């Protein structure tokens, strides 16, 4: 079983559309949507939910008014500005759940034991069936923290399912950026596929993402989306990747069919036979060849 995590650094590079096509091209895949903050993959893969679970990423503090003597200790100790002072009210303090970091300090030191500190429900995660194979996905509540923990959980579940069903690939749709959820989606994965576009921002973000995969020492590949909108920049980015030891597995041309396919809820490779679909197939084939030769290399 091989786990491939697709990330992009910058958002909007066509990562999720690519993942949908990879899910369609890969033999016996499990799919994990780890872009839990803005999950879109389900719009194309149309999962039928089999199991749904609550996710708790941490605890939240809440003042129990009947016990509070308004001493102000919690207000003084909270470093996250989450304890709010209400002039001329009783109790004089309340906790803003959106600001609460869940550190528990107020609850621990409250002299009246007036602060409840309980697991918060931060989202849901699902195990589903799709026409390609099982899919694990999630929905993080609004303004929630700990998306990293949820990402780790989604990947973990996908791995378990893939092992039980003896599947060949796990395709992971990773989140944008380089912070907590991205780190959770790449640590311990077998390979990373970076999708980027030939723009100045794309180049800039790629540098940060490459630094990240090197930092965690994960073998990575690059694929250039919409390469024809700026050919000079495409060449520049490919060189940048090569110099960082990242192999380029393909270029995908710009085609408005990407949006049409989204509207029809189909992976691009199933929606059209246009050259852009051939580009995508080439990306998958090259990626697998490269991975196979690396796997052989490491076994000898």
């Amino acid at each position, binding site marked *: 079983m091989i786990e491939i995590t697709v990330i992009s650094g910058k958002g909007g590079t066509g990562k999720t559309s690519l993942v949908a096509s990879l899910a369609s091209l890969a033999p016996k895949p499990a799919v994990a949507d780890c872009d839990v903050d803005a999950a879109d993959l389900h719009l194309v893969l149309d999962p039928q939910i089999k199991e749904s679970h609550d996710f708790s990423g941490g605890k939240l503090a809440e003042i129990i008014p009947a016990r509070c003597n308004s001493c102000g200790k919690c207000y003084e100790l909270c470093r996250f500005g989450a304890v709010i002072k209400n002039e001329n009210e009783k109790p004089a303090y309340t906790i803003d759940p959106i600001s609460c970091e869940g550190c528990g300090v107020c609850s621990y030191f409250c002299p009246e034991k007036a602060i409840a500190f309980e697991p918060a429900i931060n989202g849901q995660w699902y195990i589903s069936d799709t026409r390609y194979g099982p899919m694990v996905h999630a929905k*993080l509540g609004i*303004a929630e923290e700990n998306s990293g923990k949820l990402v780790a959980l989604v990947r973990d579940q996908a791995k378990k399912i893939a092992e039980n069903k003896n599947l060949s690939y796990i395709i992971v749709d990773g989140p944008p950026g380089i912070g907590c959820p991205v780190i959770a989606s790449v640590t311990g994965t077998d390979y990373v596929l970076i999708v980027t576009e030939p723009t*100045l921002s794309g180049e800039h*973000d790629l540098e940060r993402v490459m630094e990240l995969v090197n930092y965690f020492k994960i073998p990575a590949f690059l694929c250039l989306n919409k390469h024809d909108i700026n050919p000079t920049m495409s060449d520049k980015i490919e060189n940048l990747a090569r110099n960082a030891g990242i192999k380029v597995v393909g270029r995908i041309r710009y085609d408005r069919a990407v949006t049409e396919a989204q509207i029809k809820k189909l992976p691009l490779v199933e929606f059209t036979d246009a050259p852009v679909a051939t580009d995508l197939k080439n990306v998958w084939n090259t990626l697998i060849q490269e991975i196979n030769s690396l796997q052989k290399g490491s076994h000898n």
Partner: protein
Amino acid sequence: MKQKLTIAVASGKGGTGKTTVSASLACAAADTGHKTAYMDCDVEEPNGHLFLKPTINYRHMVGIPVPVVDQDKCTACGLCGEICQFSAIVCVNKNVLTFDKMCHGCGGCSLVCPTEAITEHSRNFGVVETGDCGNNLKFCHGKLDVGEIHSPPLIEAVRETAQGEDLSIVDASPGTSCPVVAAIKGVDYVLLVTEPTPFGVNDLEIAVDMVKELGIPHGVVINRSVPEHTLARDFCRDNNIKILVEIPDDRRVAEAYSKGELPYKGVEGYRELFKELIDTIIEEAGR
């Protein structure tokens, strides 16, 4: 315009043109005579500087307080590991280990330690840079160090740099989780940038829920708008959300963007579009 305004530009999904819109708005505001600050709070992938090309004249590291344990004073009581909710300090085999990157800097461990074995020192995890883009436009962004997981304190540090400008434009990171909330909490108005694609609209829906939960007035910009793709338009109409402007899908904009140029500066017609947009926002936000 009477009071000072802070306007955040956000989007549920990345790549909708949020940075192009916010940087263009900042220029338009400055050009129409407002003292303006552009604050790039997308600290994981800050890009505003690529378009605004500021002269950076001040830079400071941002840190959070993390514990340092004096093993001589420590009695291995284990209380620090018990209070820590983030597994950043643990007591094993009469030894206390700390994991700085996991630490949220809450101060719980040093408060709870009975022997005062824990002191705090500041650990840097990012940098804030401020500068100038010429006439009326101040610039500020934060850059999270690679491998760091915790961006909200850095975002707060960027927002704290605002100094009495009439208008602050905050470029938030994509999504709806804690970094975005840190960027938009307490602003006067949120501009949500979306694309008229199914993905774009799905993410817009989540972003709208977020700003509603935070109770911030908001409006939508449809970027790369194509007349026949009506999804975003329909969504806004059904949910009673004002569309401030539709920016057409224009290859000239995409090309300018790929070279790090703002359509505001390089593409005909966009200067007027953004000047009108900033006026509309000021009017909307002032209500």
